[in-house]
């Protein structure tokens, strides 16, 4: 190489070598002459060998760096192989790495010696450090030594089961390398690929698909089971693998789904149909077949389109292109337009990217003109564009030109003609010609413009104009006699052979229009004949022959002269042509049959040429591929298959798990502590099911946690802890595993439920003075929207409120220990009739805030309460064939009907490895009005799903029962849900005045009283908190704030869910007599009686 190379080597080596004594000498001598290099190289290698043999790490490192320098420059360092390979055992990480680099480069050439290093790698494959395992596998598979194929195969097979996903990924990468080395291992490798495709880690999936594409792209059947997962995870895969996966999915879709553009009545595949056809069709398509399409499109096909669309926003142009390709080949025509914007965006990337993208757009635009139509201006050429970019932009502009936009396009094209880039100007003229030939409205104007260009000074422009005009004239020669004359006059000035030839051809073809000029032109041409280019000579001969046929008298001698000149021409083509024409014209006796028709032969009407696009004929290749770009088949290229006539059965894509996202697998052991939570958040960064969790996670940990505690008061905090402990105990008693899961959820819910409380307290207090930035607000409101998307369960929310001082005391209540779990309720929410619901997956809970509503009601003071809910079983796992159903009353209004009691059902599949499919609500049995749950398609083993139903109990405690079916078969026993009397109520928020007013109308028949005797120690425990807790535990009612401050009377109010009948509860303590008087007023006296008993019993347990 040049001296700059050697200079470089010098500078490379000069970087501080502690032991490199001999170096300076080398540096000085090396650039001297190329001849001495060999000698010096030899010497230098000796030197490096010494350094490699030394036992100092930094010497070795320096030596290795120099070796790498040689490799980098393309110099041969092969003779150092033995010295280098020894160092593969080096402890120094960098030396080791560099040896690896060296090995990958030279192992192939020195296979025997390379084998020396294999043992080291095999040892490294067992290393506890995954980095070392992975890099060993990488090098082992990269050294391309056929003798170790079996070792490689073994290593890969082992690595596939490695704990570390990083190692598995490396294994996936190694597969393709091994396959390239020994294609006979294909079958074994496929087995490995199958394993890797099903891997749970995103990291591995991308590489696995990569390997699949390299080794066995034809085994599309391997994808079935992984298809849905790959679609769902696509956004999370790394950007490079996305490209591969997208290409694979495009192919998959083309083999598995039917053409979305095909309609029932039109069986012909018109995806590639010609434009006219598709234009007519498109109207039909959009109108009537749209419906058909929507229901005929396979849901998996739809899934693919839905999952790939967000990737159009990738920063990586290759990904965007791959999505565009997918849409182009797989999407229904009405949906393709979504890609246009993204592709246009790519035009702002690097020049090379622009070139490729523009080429693809040119092809797409030809098929779907309308999708790029609105972006016409994006294709305006700039003077700074590269020549390829200019060419393709011009092409696209021409393709997009139509009657409506032609004037703007032409104006733009005119400015291009003046561009200093003459080649581009010529292309522009060609483009104008194309516009003229395709859009009849402007043909004339264009033609005039082009004729105008012929008087320009620049030769290329003139020549191109002539050629284009010639082509245009052929389309309609009758009209343009003047133009022909004009052109003919140009013949002297134009020197570009192509243009001259065109003019001559024109004269010959239309000589009857310019019968006076034509012979004169021939005369001039005859003079210059010897100096013309071959192409012009041919046209002179043609002209001569045609003139002779038309007007033999005048031109006879001239023609003879020209033919004689041609006879002795140096170009044999010219001689041949002359000979042929001579025989045709002058030697009638030799070939009478032909001569007779000489005129017809020469002046036969010729079809007008088609002005074609420059990127034509590349369409045969799949858009965006290498083959497409260079226009020839590249090894490894395969055409996209055509759609099958029959779609494949979608059930082949069914897998054991509905949503294969890791969340389901992990949910049962979801940690409730925030610390652990955080790590889960990291892991499931993107999958959307996790979004909810994530937000919870973050807000639970939010910095304001402490503030909240302060506000809630210390009592509260303690009681919380008690509750938690309590519930833990309960769980232990329950014993059963699924139940435990749910209980955990309960506990978890409670933890979570507190966080919006935090937010709101914090928020509203701040809101009062300033519009300050509060971080948490968004997280809370985000959840509301999040949740509405899915409809799985309607959760209960707890919200808290800006408390007025008088109520702080009320809000801090403590839970007493009872056999039952404490229940509190959410009275404010019910009172407001707020319909904030949020749903979430499985046990993960969400919370929502209704900040706005709260703000409106700031003046209202409400006690903040926490809900604690008891869960009952209505289908045990024995009778349910593994399906267990539990129910509970979340005490929130039922969304779909306000007169129904809201009940949450928890479906748990207790059989670990068996999926329960298709759980459906059939009908209610006893004529009770029930709003059923939406069907559950699949319930994986061990998982549980929460749904909600609404039951109109009609103000009775009669159990409501209904049937469900599992997997299509109706369950023998029907599910029966008895209602607890307290759940038939919902809170009705009234103040003391209203309470008394209502009370007066519910006297007499509607009043029921009871007395409870308690001992003195007991009565001293009675206070608002204890009583409220107990009452609320029994019934879903709200307390009435006392205005008198009387601490002996406690009032509660509520209404029945179905008929909205009021129920008023008054509890009076009689301290002196140690009795409690309970009064219930309601016109549903039976319910009131039952409720009275319940409350009496509950209160008596206060101790």
């Amino acid at each position, binding site marked *: 190489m040049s001296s700059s190379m050697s200079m470089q080597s010098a500078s490379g080596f000069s970087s501080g070598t502690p032991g490199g004594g001999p170096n300076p000498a080398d540096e000085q001598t090396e650039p001297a002459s190329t001849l001495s290099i060999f000698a010096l190289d030899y010497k230098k290698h000796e030197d490096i060998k010494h350094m490699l043999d030394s036992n100092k790490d930094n010497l070795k490192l320096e030596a290795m760096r120099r070796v790498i320098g040689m490799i980098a420059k393309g110099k041969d360092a092969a003779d150092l192989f033995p010295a280098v390979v020894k160092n593969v055992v080096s402890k*120094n990480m960098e030396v080791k790495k560099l040896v690896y680099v060296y090995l990958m480069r030279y192992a192939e050439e020195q296979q025997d010696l390379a084998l020396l290093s294999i043992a080291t790698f095999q040892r490294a494959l067992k290393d506890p450090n995954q980095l070392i395992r992975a890099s060993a596998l990488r090098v082992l598979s990269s050294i391309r030594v056929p003798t170790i194929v079996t070792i490689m195969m073994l290593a890969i097979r082992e690595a596939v089961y490695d704990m570390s996903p990083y190692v598995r990924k490396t294994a996936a990468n190694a597969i393709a390398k091994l396959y390239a080395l020994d294609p006979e291992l294909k079958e074994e490798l496929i087995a490995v690929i199958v394993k890797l495709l099903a891997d749970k880690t995103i990291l591995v999936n991308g590489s696995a698909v990569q390997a699949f594409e390299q080794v066995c792209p034809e085994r599309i059947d391997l994808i079935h089971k992984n298809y849905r997962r790959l679609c769902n995870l696509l956004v999370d895969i790394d950007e490079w693998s996305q490209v591969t996966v997208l290409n694979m999915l495009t192919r998959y879709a083309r083999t598995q789904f039917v053409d979305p553009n095909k309609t029932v009545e039109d069986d012909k595949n018109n995806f590639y149909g010609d434009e006219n056809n598709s234009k007519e069709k498109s109207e039909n398509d959009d109108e009537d077949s749209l419906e058909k399409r929507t229901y005929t499109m396979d849901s998996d096909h739809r899934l693919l389109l839905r999952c790939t669309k967000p990737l159009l926003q990738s920063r990586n142009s290759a990904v965007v292109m791959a999505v565009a390709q997918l849409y182009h080949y797989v999407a229904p025509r009405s949906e393709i337009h979504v890609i246009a914007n993204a592709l246009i965006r790519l035009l702002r990337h690097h020049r090379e990217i622009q070139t*490729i993208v523009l080429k693809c757009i040119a092809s797409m635009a030809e098929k779907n003109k309308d999708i790029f139509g609105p972006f016409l201006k994006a294709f305006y050429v700039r003077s700074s564009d590269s020549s390829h970019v200019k060419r393709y932009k011009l092409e696209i502009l021409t393709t997009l030109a139509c009657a409506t936009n032609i004037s703007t396009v032409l104006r733009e094209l005119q400015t291009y003609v003046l561009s200093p880039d003459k080649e581009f100007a010529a292309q522009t003229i060609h483009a104008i010609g194309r516009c003229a030939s395709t859009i009849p409205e402007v043909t004339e104007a264009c033609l005039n413009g082009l004729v105008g260009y012929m008087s320009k000074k620049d030769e290329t422009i003139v020549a191109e104009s002539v050629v284009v005009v010639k082509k245009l004239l052929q389309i309609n020669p009758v009209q343009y006699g003047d133009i022909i004359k004009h052109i003919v006059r140009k013949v002297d000035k134009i020197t570009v052979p192509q243009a001259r030839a065109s003019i001559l051809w024109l004269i010959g073809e239309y000589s009857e229009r310019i019968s006076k000029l034509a012979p004169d032109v021939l005369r001039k041409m005859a003079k210059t004949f010897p100096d013309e280019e071959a192409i012009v000579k041919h046209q002179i001969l043609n002209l001569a022959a045609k003139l002779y046929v038309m007007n033999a008298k005048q031109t006879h001698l001239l023609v003879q002269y020209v033919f004689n000149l041609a006879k002795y021409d140096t170009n044999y083509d010219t001689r041949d042509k002359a000979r042929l024409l001579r025989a045709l014209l002058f030697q009638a006796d030799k070939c009478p049959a032909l001569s007779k028709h000489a005129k017809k032969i020469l002046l036969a009407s010729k079809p007008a040429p088609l002005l074609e696009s420059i990127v034509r004929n590349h369409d045969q290749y799949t858009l965006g591929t290498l083959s497409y770009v260079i226009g020839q088949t590249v090894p490894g290229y395969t055409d996209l298959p055509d759609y099958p006539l029959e779609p494949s059965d979608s059930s082949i894509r069914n897998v054991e798990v509905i949503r294969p996202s890791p969340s389901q697998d992990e949910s049962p052991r979801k940690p409730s502590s925030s610390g652990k939570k955080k790590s889960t958040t990291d892991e499931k960064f993107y999958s959307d099911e996790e979004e909810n969790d994530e937000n919870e996670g973050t807000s639970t940990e939010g910095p304001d946690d402490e503030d909240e505690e302060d506000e809630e008061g210390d009592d509260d905090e303690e009681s919380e802890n008690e509750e938690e402990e309590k519930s833990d105990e309960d769980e232990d008693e329950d014993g059963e595993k699924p139940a435990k899961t749910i209980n955990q959820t309960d506990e978890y819910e409670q933890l979570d439920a507190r966080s919006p409380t935090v937010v709101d307290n914090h928020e509203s207090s701040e809101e009062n003075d300033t519009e300050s930035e509060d971080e948490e607000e*968004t997280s809370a409101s985000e959840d509301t929207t999040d949740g509405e998307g899915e409809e799985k369960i309607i959760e209960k929310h707890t919200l808290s409120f800006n408390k007025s001082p008088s109520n702080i005391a009320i809000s801090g209540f403590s839970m007493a220990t009872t056999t039952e779990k404490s229940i509190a309720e959410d009275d404010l929410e019910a009172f407001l009739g707020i319909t904030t619901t949020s749903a979430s997956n499985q046990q993960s809970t969400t919370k929502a805030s209704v900040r706005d509503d709260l703000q409106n009601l700031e003046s209202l003071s409400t006690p903040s309460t926490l809900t604690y809910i008891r869960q009952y079983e209505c289908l045990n796992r024995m009778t349910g064939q593994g399906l267990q159903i539990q129910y509970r009353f979340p005490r929130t209004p039922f969304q779909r009907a306000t007169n129904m009691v809201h009940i949450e059902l928890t479906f748990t599949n207790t059989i670990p490895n068996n999926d329960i499919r298709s759980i459906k609500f059939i009908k209610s049995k006893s004529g009770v009005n029930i709003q059923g749950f939406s069907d559950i398609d699949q319930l994986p083993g061990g998982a549980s799903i929460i749904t909600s139903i609404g039951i109109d109990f009609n103000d009775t405690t009669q159990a409501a029962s209904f049937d469900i079916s599992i997997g299509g078969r109706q369950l023998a026993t029907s599910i029966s849900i008895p209602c607890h009397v307290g759940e038939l109520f919902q809170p009705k928020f009234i103040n003391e005045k209203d309470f008394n007013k209502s009370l007066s109308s519910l006297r007499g028949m509607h009043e029921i009283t009871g007395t409870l005797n308690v001992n003195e120690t007991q009565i001293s425990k009675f206070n608002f908190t204890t009583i409220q807790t107990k009452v609320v535990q029994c019934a879903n009612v709200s307390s009435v704030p006392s205005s008198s401050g009387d601490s002996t009377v406690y009032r509660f109010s509520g209404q029945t869910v179905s008929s909205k009948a009021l129920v008023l509860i008054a509890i009076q303590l009689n301290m002196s007599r140690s009795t409690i008087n309970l009064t219930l007023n309601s016109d549903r006296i039976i319910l009131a009686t039952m409720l009275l008993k319940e409350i009496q019993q509950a209160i008596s347990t206060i101790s």
Partner: protein
Amino acid sequence: MIHSLFIINGAGDVFMEKHWKTVVGKSICDYFFEAQSKCANSEDVPPVIATPHHYLVNIFRNNLYFVAVLTNEVAPLFVIEFLHRIMDVFEYYFGECTETSLKDNYVVVYELLDEMLDSGLPLATETNILEELIKRPNIILKMTKLITGDDTNFGNTLPSSQLSNIPWRRMGIRYTNNEAYFDLIEEIDAIIDRNGVTVMCEIQGYIDCCIKLSGNPDLTLSFVNPRLLDDVSFHPCVRLKKWESERVLSFIPPDGNFRLISYHIGSQKCQSDAISIPIYVKHNIQFREGSSGRFELTVGPKQTMGKTLEAVVIECSMPKSVLNCTLTPTQGKCTFDPVKKILVWDIGKIESKTQAAARLPSLRGNIVLSTGQPLPESNPVLNVRFTLNQIAISGIRVQRVDMHGEKYKPFKGVKYITTVKNGRFQIQTKQNFSIPD
């Protein structure tokens, strides 16, 4: 996939090569040189060149050619994008990607190439992963090397982030000052015809971030008017679904500098939302027979919303027949390069208040044309450059930036800049012949 890579300098020397599979001889580059020689301009080399057995994909950047050799079908964009990514990484590592910087750091270059591709397939392309694997050469590293004698570029640990699903963020980042800066930069891209009518106006915007936050912060950035953004591309850290449903950017940021999103506001939007060009240029250019001509320019601000136009530069490449110019500006400096025929008028600041035409910067003078040559057919195109600080011309504004997941209060700052990329703001000075519509 990518078989080999050759790095070629502007002079046509192959100064570095790397092979991931079997070695491909340097002679393959001859095909590239052949294609190159056919092109007048170094930018005109076709990005994909077919040779009998190999396919060359090249990029040209920083006066260097990166030529990748392929043997099999690969999406060309994939390779091009990857080559650019390699260059980005080099720029990140060495500050610039030039022949000298690559040669000075050839070992690091080689190590990087080795980590980025595994037998031609992309492996680690995120700079923070690479940085954990291979240390970035800097002064401190050199110093410690000298002192400790520990002369290695390699980290001994596996980059933990490579294993997580957030490959762009390192674990355990700690800062004493937690700061997050967002630079919202918009580049105007416009063509104005000689009557002052905007033929085309587009805006290319970016948000470049410099995030120095401890731990694993989860940021949410919302806009006042997200509807303006309909054509956006994101850094992989942005949650696409969140954007689609709520139009907020929710992400766990990479550490350090990165481009969060880039967006494009197309011509339709620019016109309908009346995004106004903040500058105007009045021109009067005449070439007269008899080897002379007049040249007059006046520049003024237009609807700058009270902001000052800064760093205003007008560039004009004159027709070939112009010999020299004698021009006097009322403000700034004017130079003419008689070889390249480029006139540069560096104006500097234009206060928005100076509405009076007399005080607007202007440039006047004569042009000397070479005698005997025909008059130039077209008048020159003016390339205008300027910067507007504290404003994004499209009107986009960041509403708020929230952080979750960490307990500290970070400092958050947003900066707006409107600017023009070289050659993207063109003013045509004469319209030539017209075809009747």
